[in-house]
């Protein structure tokens, strides 16, 4: 009986996943395989020139100073943005899930950054942070600053402006997902805690957080993938250059610069992409393990 059930489950399992695998196999995996193939070659896609050069493209990643800078910028970006966006999204979602007046309105308003186009957003932020912009004005008036800071053209600040922009625009996405997940937590669990006289904070730590662990895994991994691949905000912000002083150069920007434009270094660009994927995979794997083992009970 159990054996038959098992067998049935295998067939069911494959049946359920096969449409998705077909699509991903044809349209994504094939492209990845092709990219992998390119990464071992010196290529010119225009002329169809392929020269096998083994690991040369990969070796270059480790000696190329620009790539190293891009990598450390990106890692810094991930390290700051992912924890903040995750914690923020979780807190906002659980607050909105509580018994509150005007929940619906808050939920809709908090969703809005998802709909604000990144070009418009970048323009507003660049204006807010400009040398004569409102943030400098405010800081000067309040005597926080003696002299205006050139946030956009100072390597110490440029990436931080992008970080704040990115957090602002990604929190609603994760918040919405947390909010949906919170609906799965049975009320009875909270009610039992109420009987025990638990405070809101205790309920958050002891019920909400553990219950949402699978979703936190999702949020963490998507955050890691998204931030490691961060491209468009850095691109718009620096006009594609990654400056000033390479401070906004991300790995994805470095990949783009090598894949398109005057540089005909598709092989190097794909090698970087493959390496980045491996890094993302490793970091995601560790994050997932940490999230699982972390016992908050």
């Amino acid at each position, binding site marked *: 009986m159990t054996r038959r059930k098992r067998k049935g489950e295998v067939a069911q399992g494959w049946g359920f996943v096969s449409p*998705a695998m077909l699509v991903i196999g044809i349209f994504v995996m094939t492209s990845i395989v092709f*990219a992998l193939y390119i990464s071992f070659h010196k290529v010119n896609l225009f002329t169809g020139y392929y020269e096998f050069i083994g690991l040369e493209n990969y070796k270059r990643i480790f000696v190329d100073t620009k790539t190293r800078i891009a990598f450390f910028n990106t890692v810094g970006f991930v390290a700051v943005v992912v924890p903040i966006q995750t914690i923020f999204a979780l807190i906002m979602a659980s607050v909105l899930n509580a018994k509150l007046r005007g929940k619906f309105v808050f939920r809709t308003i908090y*969703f809005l950054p998802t709909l604000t186009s990144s070009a418009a957003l970048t323009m507003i932020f660049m204006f807010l942070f400009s040398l004569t912009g409102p943030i400098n004005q405010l800081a000067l008036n309040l005597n926080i600053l003696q002299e205006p800071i050139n946030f956009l053209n100072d390597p110490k600040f440029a990436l931080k402006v992008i970080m704040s922009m990115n957090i602002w625009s990604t929190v609603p996405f994760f918040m919405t997902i947390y909010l949906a997940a919170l*609906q799965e937590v049975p009320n009875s669990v909270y009610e039992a805690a109420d009987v025990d006289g638990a405070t809101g904070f205790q309920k958050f730590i002891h019920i909400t957080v553990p219950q949402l662990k699978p979703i936190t895994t999702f949020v963490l991994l998507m955050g890691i993938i998204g931030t490691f691949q961060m491209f468009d905000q850095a691109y718009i912000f620096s006009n594609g250059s990654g400056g000033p002083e390479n401070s906004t150069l991300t790995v*994805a920007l470095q990949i783009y610069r090598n894949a398109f434009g005057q540089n005909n270094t598709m092989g190097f660009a794909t090698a970087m992409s493959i390496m980045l994927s491996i890094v993302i995979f490793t970091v995601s794997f560790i994050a997932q393990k940490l999230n699982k083992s972390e016992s908050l009970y």
Partner: protein
Amino acid sequence: MNKKKKVFKWILYIVLIGYALFTLFPFLWAVSASFKTYKEITGGGLNIIPNAPTLHAYKKLFTIDENFIRWIFNSFFICILGTFINVFLNSMTGYALARLQFKGKHLIFYAILVSIMVPGQVLLIPNYLIIKTFGLLNSYSAIILPAAVNATYIFMMRQFYINFPKTIEEAAAIDGLGRLGTFFRVSMPLAKPAIATQSVFIFLAFWNEFLKPKLYLSDPSKYTLTVGIQSMMSRYGGITQWDEVMAASVISLVPILLLYIVLNRYFMQGIRMDGEK
């Protein structure tokens, strides 16, 4: 209610409203900018009410091309069809990965994850060649087929179903429902919040997708609204005509905002059946 709790509630509201302003402001500014003149937008005013409101940018967009109405239709066609296929396939796959025991499950799960870990920039040209090989260029299939499933939401659905109380399904099995029946009659309807969330974001992704449709479709009458507007908008010596850009982004967000508001009630409907579990 004690005093401490009341104070706490007030603080909470202040924080909520503060954050609301923080998210609302750039959004409102962008919306209001679409009613401003170019001069006012670039003049650097932070005012939400335009000094001299104008519909100039909208008039321009609505008359930008004879295909405008067609584009709206195309957009809705692609988005609705694409979202339906996605919700169905993603949920099914996510469910199988979370609930069914079968060989190769982990391999598939990791393959799905890996497919979103490779940066898209280097996949653009291989993708183009594949679409061309299948003879899909200049057809809606080129937009819908490769995006018929979305690895992100397969992953999300898997994480949702992992937490799902098993008891409900077992009850369904006792009632004589097969696996497919259980999935459609029980597991799908109970995941309403997740499905509503998924629908909004997938619709959003289809609606805003720009580069790929632009690349795959060469016939302007087949464009989606986003592609049409963006490609017809003036690119005069690299100058961004901000009034038109803002108006275009407002036009494109209206359907999604409506969808979000409509689906909002589902966000809060879960399996909160008391007594379960």
